[in-house]
């Protein structure tokens, strides 16, 4: 029996040494260790041996089986690792080829700037309100202290829809609508398109966008206006942005102030790195960005508020202007032409 086993062991070793593929290996495994394999048969034969011989022979058979199992496993592992080394040596992707294209659209630059502005103002406690684009003259002009036959109407080239309705020339009529509908305190912002009867040029469009904001409460001061707009401008244009307030005129505010920020291009130095004068700020170092002021008592009277009891400030800015400054766009018409070569840059 032992001789038989030894001979079988030698035979198996020879077969395994000659074996070169996984398939051959599997064939060998089945031939010797399969259900009808030679070694399996030998193991079965152990059962018929006399009881006293069985343990020793059984042990020999098991040893052989273990040895063969290990041999097969080792061969498999060796080949597997050889293959992995080969694969590592040969598998390559060209990482310079383009990736798979996922559809992606672009934010319109006006939306990007507007969302920034609204986000800042909402975080400061303002709420968004909207109003009609077709306005009556009362809300667009008269209630805002712009009477008929007043030169201030020259500041607004107006589209008329009928004798008493216009396309709103600014977002300020929504101030009136909001105040007509509720009592102070009010902290409101009004974004949206406005319309001016202006021929389209590099600088002008018959439709453009504004954001208006106003705060009405007891004891709102001009200092508060300066504080809130200073904060807004720094968050919008960067912490190092300087801001200045200079007197101006709007019929619906008094005192009125134009708000300038230090030029976003030359950082207020009036000159470019090349030494040439900065053209964006016309070498003044400042850019006009906002109109503002304390709400005029006449406006409060128009909505039934008592100007002795409440005060407030209002401000407004052009979204196009901010976007043009932010992105260096010099022609306002790009915003409405929707050229994909333009849109895809944002």
């Amino acid at each position, binding site marked *: 029996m032992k001789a038989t086993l030894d001979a079988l062991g030698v035979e198996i070793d020879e077969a395994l040494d000659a074996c070169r593929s996984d398939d051959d290996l599997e064939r060998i495994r089945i031939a010797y260790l399969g259900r009808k394999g030679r070694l399996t048969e030998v193991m079965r034969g152990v059962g018929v041996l006399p009881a006293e011989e069985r343990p020793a022979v059984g042990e020999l058979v098991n040893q052989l089986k273990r040895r063969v199992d290990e041999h097969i496993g080792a061969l498999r592992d060796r080949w597997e690792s050889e293959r992995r080394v080969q694969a590592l040596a040969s598998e390559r992707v060209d990482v310079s080829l383009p990736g798979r*294209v996922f559809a992606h659209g672009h934010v319109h630059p006006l939306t990007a700037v507007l969302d920034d502005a609204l986000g800042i103002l909402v975080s400061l406690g303002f709420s968004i309100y909207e109003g009609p684009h077709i306005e009556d003259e009362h809300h667009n002009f008269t209630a805002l202290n712009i009477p008929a036959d007043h*030169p201030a109407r020259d500041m607004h080239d107006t589209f008329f829809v009928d004798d008493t309705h216009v396309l709103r020339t600014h977002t300020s009529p929504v101030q009136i609508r909001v105040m007509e509908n509720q009592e102070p305190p009010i902290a409101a912002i009004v974004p949206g*398109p406005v319309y001016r009867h202006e021929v389209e040029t590099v600088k002008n469009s018959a439709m453009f966008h504004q954001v208006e904001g106003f705060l009405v409460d007891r004891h709102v001061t001009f200092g508060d206006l300066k504080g809130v707009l200073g904060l807004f401008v720094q968050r919008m244009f960067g912490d190092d942005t300087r801001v200045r307030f*200079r*007197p101006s005129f709007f019929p619906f505010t008094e005192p009125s102030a134009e708000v300038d920020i230090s030029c976003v291009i030359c950082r207020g130095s009036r000159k470019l790195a090349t030494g040439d004068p900065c053209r964006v700020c016309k070498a003044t170092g400042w850019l006009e960005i906002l109109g503002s002021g304390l709400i005029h008592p006449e406006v409060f009277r128009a909505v039934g508020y008592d100007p002795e009891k409440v005060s407030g400030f209002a401000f407004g800015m052009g979204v196009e202007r901010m976007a043009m400054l932010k992105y260096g766009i010099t022609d306002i018409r790009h915003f409405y032409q929707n050229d994909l070569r333009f849109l895809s840059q944002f």
Partner: protein
Amino acid sequence: MKITLNWLRELVDVVLSPDELADTLVMAGLEVESVDERRPSWGSVEIARIESVQPHPNADRLRLCQVKRAHESVAVVCGASNMQAGDLVALAVPGTVLPDGKHIEQATIRGQSSHGMLCSARELALSDEDGGGIMILPRDAEIGVSLVSYLSAEDTILELSVTPNRGDCLSVLGVAREVAALTGATLRVPAVKIVEGKAAAARIVSIEVQAPDLCSRYCGRVVRGLRIAPSPLWMQTRLGMVGLRPINNVVDATNYVMLERGQPLHAFDLARIRGARITARRAGNRQRYETLDGVTRELLPDDLVIADAEGPVALAGVIGGADSEIRAETVDILLESAFFVPETVRRTARRLGVNTESSYRFERGVDPGGTRTALDRVTELVVAHSGGEIARGVLEQRAPGRRARPAIRLRPARVNALLGTTFKATEMERPLKALGAVVSGKGSASWRVVPPSHRFDIQNEVDLVEEVARLIGYDRVPATVPSIVAGGPGMGPTRDVEQRLRERLRSGGFDEMVTLAMVSAEDNRDFPGLPELTGRAVTLANPLSVDAAELRRSLLPGMLRAFSENRRQGAEHVAGFTIGRVFAREDDRYQELQTLALLVAGSPPATTMGEARRAVDFADLKGVLGLMFAELHLDRVRWERVGTEAGYLHPGKSARIEIGGVACGYVGALHPNAIAERHLDAEPWVAELDLMRVVQYCPRRVIFRPLPRFPAVSRDIAVVVDDEFPAQRVIDAVEEVAEPLVEDVRVFDQYTGSPIPSGKKSLAYTIAYRAPNRTLTDDEVNAMHEQLVARLVRELPLEVRR
């Protein structure tokens, strides 16, 4: 408005540099648009006197002049012949560079040495015209003085942008007042000196104001026997610098004083005033009238005119008449200085589309206290430059009942309360006094302030608050950040939804676009928009062009324009969306809807190299809208075939989107007719939705569903149906059964072709079954599925494929 620094310096001391002055004015609310320094290259041209003029010995056309300079006498060869001994002339000494770049050297001309050149006005770029030879200067010119300083030709021009409330700043005097108030310098307005003759003006012409409500003061002076000629060169130079064309010595004087004092003035040729009578009255009836710009204009009965015995001679404050304008042969004139009510001037000027320096100032208001001084000032200049005799007396009529200005109450505490400052009373008083206001009652909490007559814009307390803040400086107001405690919707539901769907559409490959609200009538006819827009199109009363005559009913024309422009630029694929208002008018009510439009056309970019390009189809649009609805958690969305309500869409390739059973928008391929009319080279798929309805159906909150604990089992079913059969019908039928164990049903395949007979198609669905409390057995599911299939076969025109 332009002014010059030298001119300003005549009225106030300016110690600041031009840039500092500009900064000071800007920070006080007078915007300075530009600072333009004029420094002529010919600074060395000086005034000299001709001592003798001889013919040039060697040239017929040249003259040999002996010219007296301050300290020597020199010989100059000259080509002109209009000078004679004693004339004062402009001598360009050797070393001078003329505006055209020519260098003047000492030279020998045909054997005669010449020490410079005698200049014409044109050679010094002072005039466009030749003037028939060299410049002969007036007698008041002084030998040796530089011509630049004599003419005030070296100057700095400030261009100011004056806000509509500050009509008082539309003059050199007005700006000088501001400078004085801001810098503490003293205003020095030179006194006017005139000498009247014997003849009484009132006997020459009479003045009457018949419309005192429109003209509260009218003053006139008569000058007779003057000679019309060009104005002195210094005045021409100065007018030119501020952008006014010199005309003659009378008209220039009226313009000059208007710029200096802010009071518009007018000169009439007295010989052409019929009936020796001037009346300020309403036109009275419609009539046609020729103004001095040669245009015949129509007057309305309420227009204020200045008339003689027979008819209008000027449109008050707007423009003079052609008949009575000053001509070369004019010898007697009537000078007018008046206060016309701003509104009447503005109405007439607006209606006629005339904007003159005069109307511009009257509209913004002129100093009612300055009417008479301006008249005397212009008379002074006219006589100085044109000669003539001033008739005795001022012709004047004022509206009755004009009283002194009422005082304005000013509470110093209120100033600090509004500004958020702690200014002391003395600090507030200083700027008011600097303005020329009279302040009384200073001991009390409520002052009484009377502003000067030229500050008619200061009407109430808050105007004074601004003046105090402005003159002390806005930079002195400390910035404070209030804690804002106000109710309100915050971002608000609509904005929130808009922002989310913008993001989702972008992530679906759509670019955001912005289109203009004005469209053509044809656009509105072809694209009437959503059915909710029941009214007719809104037309503009004053459109900029026929292409922009109406307000859009639909966002689609704008999107189609963007599409075709991009195709023209070579774009293969256009996918865009826009959010905007659309408009209609129903009786006297206007409708405005916030809508969303999408457009996709062309062939989408291949996702990988080598992938075949395909044309956009319905699934692209439905897919991206599905993405959007999913973002908004809208699950009750249905896509229905369109009837006739969207004629701009292809009837077989379009759908109505319903949310919660309500139509919210339309989707589909553009109708072939519209494609042809717009010459489009690809079939665009478009959609338009009513955003407010979408927002309305968005669930307010999302509620978590517990995760299933037991597995789902699915069964497929394939059916053969007519081509026309919508896939949704099977889904609807399954859902109608309302079997609680059916979790989901969806279509996953559509097939036509062999072996399916033509006119038919095969649809494949998968149905998922799940119980919440146990694992379903195969037998259970099979039984349920068989029952369901049997029901479908019974109820729907379909055959089950086995």
